[in-house]
């Protein structure tokens, strides 16, 4: 990492009269308040968590490779599904987006840094401790959380292991980190835009993150409330979710999903911003319907607060409530559809090339659309009674989260990596990574639709014989997808060692925006004098 220091120091000497030395060694990373360093920390942390959560998915798929119990006990299997979900949601996808926000938002709006740099440092550095606590609970007597990432009461209260307390504290810390990150994004965007960077000139990534940040501030406290009630129900004799004490276990699900559904959009709105940046670049044509993209994002965010109970159609709600949540959920497909149509219209009569970020972006549009359409099917209450809690649902949310959110993150990394390092990444490896991931991810998740429709429930360590053949294929796809990510790891290590061809400031022929006007690699300090946006 010392090379980074040398390069950037050189640039900053040339560009401005910045005299102080860039810190080096471990303290550079521990004490840093620089948005680029913190962005890098977030991204590496997310990638490590992605590999750990992925390793747990490998355990799950190995056990499900054939019928019978071969590798793990059911109790450990449940811990794997639970912690896999928690790590991927809170450890991989959310920190990766926060890392991208840190790197890109100041550069995109012409700000020198995030508005609250010390809080920025803190919001990152509490995260590793949250996950150390969570992962260490797996080694305690009774094991870690085994009640699913949704921790439905009373399975997570009366019937859980004592390590639940650690789970609760870990979630509290993650929540605090997310809230601080969100405050920082909002304050930065409201106060630090360069002169002339009006609201409707902001890149869509900035817009989508601004809206995401409001969602985070609205719902993370709700999650904190839910875990606190679980804690007091389990350890301090309250009865929020226990009917015997006047509580209601279904109320837990209402509270959880009031957090949980906006959470889903927290994990996809920034992806929309990324795709809206990449498609115009490689189509060499302005984004179609910029304003409608902004309004569509805002509508999705608002609707996300009134659809939560579509996760709970089988809990025994009144018909009127089921109808309301069905209609509200179906409505979300309108603004989401608008986005997809706008991307296709952007590509239409463009002049397209297919560099690696574009490949991931196109895969995103196709596969996210598949996930979105199965989501529309799931919204229909009478058929959801069949789909609910089967592998059809597992297929659906992995299409939107893996080939949606995670593919968008990979697209973003390939798109901005040359700007960050100043060198083009290894294109051969990147293409291998793309094609291996694309094929294996579909072998992994597509047959899940079939076993789900055929009647295989989620979260079971063993299954009836008619599901055996598809599960074998799903597991093979899973192992291949897991191995494909090692190509990405090698590529990233090479990139961090500054291997590759130097790139220009613009990097990609069609790229537009403030971040492409500063040199590559981006100097340690940028826009100390604000640029003027015309």
């Amino acid at each position: 990492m010392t090379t980074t220091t040398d390069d950037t120091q050189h640039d900053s000497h040339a560009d401005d009269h910045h005299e102080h030395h860039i810190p080096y060694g471990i303290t550079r990373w521990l004490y840093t308040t620089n948005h680029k360093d913190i962005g890098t920390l977030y991204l590496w942390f997310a990638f490590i968590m992605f590999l750990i959560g992925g390793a747990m998915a490998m355990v799950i798929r190995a056990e499900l490779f054939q019928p019978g119990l071969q590798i793990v006990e059911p109790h450990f299997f449940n811990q794997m599904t639970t912690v896999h979900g928690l790590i991927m949601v809170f450890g991989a996808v959310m920190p990766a987006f926060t890392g991208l926000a840190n790197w890109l938002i100041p550069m995109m709006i012409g700000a020198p840094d995030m508005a609250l740099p010390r809080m920025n440092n803190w919001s990152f550095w509490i995260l590793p401790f949250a996950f150390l606590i969570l992962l260490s609970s797996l080694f305690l007597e009774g094991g870690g959380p085994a009640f699913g990432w949704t921790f439905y009461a009373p399975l997570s209260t009366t019937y859980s292991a004592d390590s639940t307390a650690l789970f609760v504290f870990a979630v509290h810390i993650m929540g605090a980190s997310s809230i601080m990150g969100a405050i920082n994004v909002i304050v930065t965007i409201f106060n630090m835009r360069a002169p002339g960077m009006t609201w409707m000139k902001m890149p869509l990534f900035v817009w989508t993150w601004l809206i995401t940040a409001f969602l985070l501030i609205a719902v993370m406290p709700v999650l904190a409330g839910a875990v606190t009630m679980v804690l007091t129900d389990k350890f301090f004799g309250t009865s929020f979710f226990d009917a015997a004490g006047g509580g209601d276990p279904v109320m837990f699900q209402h509270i959880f999903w009031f957090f949980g559904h906006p959470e889903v959009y927290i994990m996809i709105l920034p992806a929309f911003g990324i795709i809206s940046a990449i498609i115009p670049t490689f189509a060499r044509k302005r984004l179609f319907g910029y304003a409608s993209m902004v309004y569509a994002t805002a509508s999705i965010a608002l609707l996300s607060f009134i659809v939560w109970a579509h996760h709970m159609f089988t809990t025994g709600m009144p018909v009127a409530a089921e109808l309301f949540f069905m209609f509200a959920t179906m409505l979300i497909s309108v603004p989401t559809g608008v986005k997809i149509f706008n991307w296709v219209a952007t590509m239409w009569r463009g002049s397209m090339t297919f560099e690696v970020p574009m490949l991931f972006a196109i895969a995103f549009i196709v596969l996210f659309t598949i996930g979105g359409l199965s989501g529309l099917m799931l919204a229909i209450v009478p058929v959801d009674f069949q789909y609910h809690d089967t592998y059809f649902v597992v297929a659906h949310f992995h299409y939107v989260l893996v080939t949606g959110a995670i593919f968008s993150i990979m697209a973003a990394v390939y798109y901005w990596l040359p700007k960050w390092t100043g060198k083009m990444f290894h294109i051969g490896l990147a293409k291998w990574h793309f094609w291996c991931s694309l094929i294996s991810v579909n072998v992994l998740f597509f047959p899940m639709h079939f076993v789900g429709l055929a009647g295989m429930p989620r979260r079971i360590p063993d299954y009836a014989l008619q599901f055996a053949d598809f599960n074998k294929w799903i597991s093979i796809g899973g192992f291949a997808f897991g191995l494909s990510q090692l190509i990405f790891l090698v590529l990233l290590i090479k990139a961090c060692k500054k291997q590759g061809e130097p790139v220009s400031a613009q990097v990609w022929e069609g790229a537009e925006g403030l971040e492409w006007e500063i040199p590559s690699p981006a100097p340690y300090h940028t826009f100390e004098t604000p640029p003027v946006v015309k």
Partner: protein
Amino acid sequence: MLSALMTTPVFAESKDHIEQYQLNMTKGVTDISAGVYDMHMLMFIICVVIGAAVFIAMFISMYFHRKSRGAKPANFHESVKVEIAWTVIPFVILVVMAVPAMNLLIDMEDASEPDVSILVTGSQWKWHYKYMDNDVEYYSKLATQADQISGKLPKGENYLLEVDRPLVIPTGQKVRFLITSDDVIHSWWVPDFGFKQDANPGFINDAWTNVNEPGVYRGQCAELCGKDHGFMPIVVIAKEPAEYSKWISEQEAVQQQAKAEEQRLLSMNMTMDEAMEQGENVYNANCAACHMPNGEGLPGVFPALKGSQIAVADQPKHIDILINGVTGSAMQSYAKQLTMSEIAAVVTYERNAWGNDTGDLVQAKDINSAMNGQ
């Protein structure tokens, strides 16, 4: 190993009957489940058409409007008319979906005027069925042998989808299920009936079915309910109404007799060997899932019985736990799940197995007096 080899041909033969690579949802055996299937296919076809339209437009564009073919980018980047069109048209399609969905849902949720009502109670990890109009109730548990799960024996045709005592319902009659739970949330699901309904502790949900064809229908618990969530199947046998009436009155008589028999057995004493033999069977069927066949439990989750203070010393407490369960834990009350002589046998077994060796022999009358608070 030898037995495994010998039974392999049977296994291979039976495997042919299982539909491998089933791709789609079942049509089921009720009018509702057929309606659900039709709704599912309608949704599926609309989604495929929308998806295909989007992808074709994309791929045409990717083929013709690529730089390598010399495409020059156009300049357009907004059109209010187009934007309105692709907001309004999807909305209209949604209405087309919503109307039949709403009608079907209203039919599904109308559980009024049932012919038969059955109380379905989930608990870790079995189902309890109580016929509300007859004096019949029983537990229904996984019947697949542990050796099949661990791979020591070949897996049978209905591996993990078989129970000791299936639920029996009449065909052509409206059967209402009142669904609840004794511990965590479970979910009662038979795909052929076209619905699943959560079993919430402390609350009762209802659902109904009206099965058209006699047959055996299999399903599973669909809500994560702890360690053995995957081992909690449901089997329903639908019989012609006449056969059903015959079956239910037989069951009434059998259960009546069993109660009388239990009273009679109060005066009988088991020998140690009898108690240990019966106790081991009861233990393996009811207790081993949590406390493990070796009595060592799962540290931090399910306590060990081997060498535990209660199992080697405090006999009244031991009996009390079996009768009343332990509040705030996964330990259920077995007063209704087992007969008094079964409880006596399993207590005896637990006090003498795995080196507990207390020599205590508990009799059904001891359980009876504990139950009556003496």
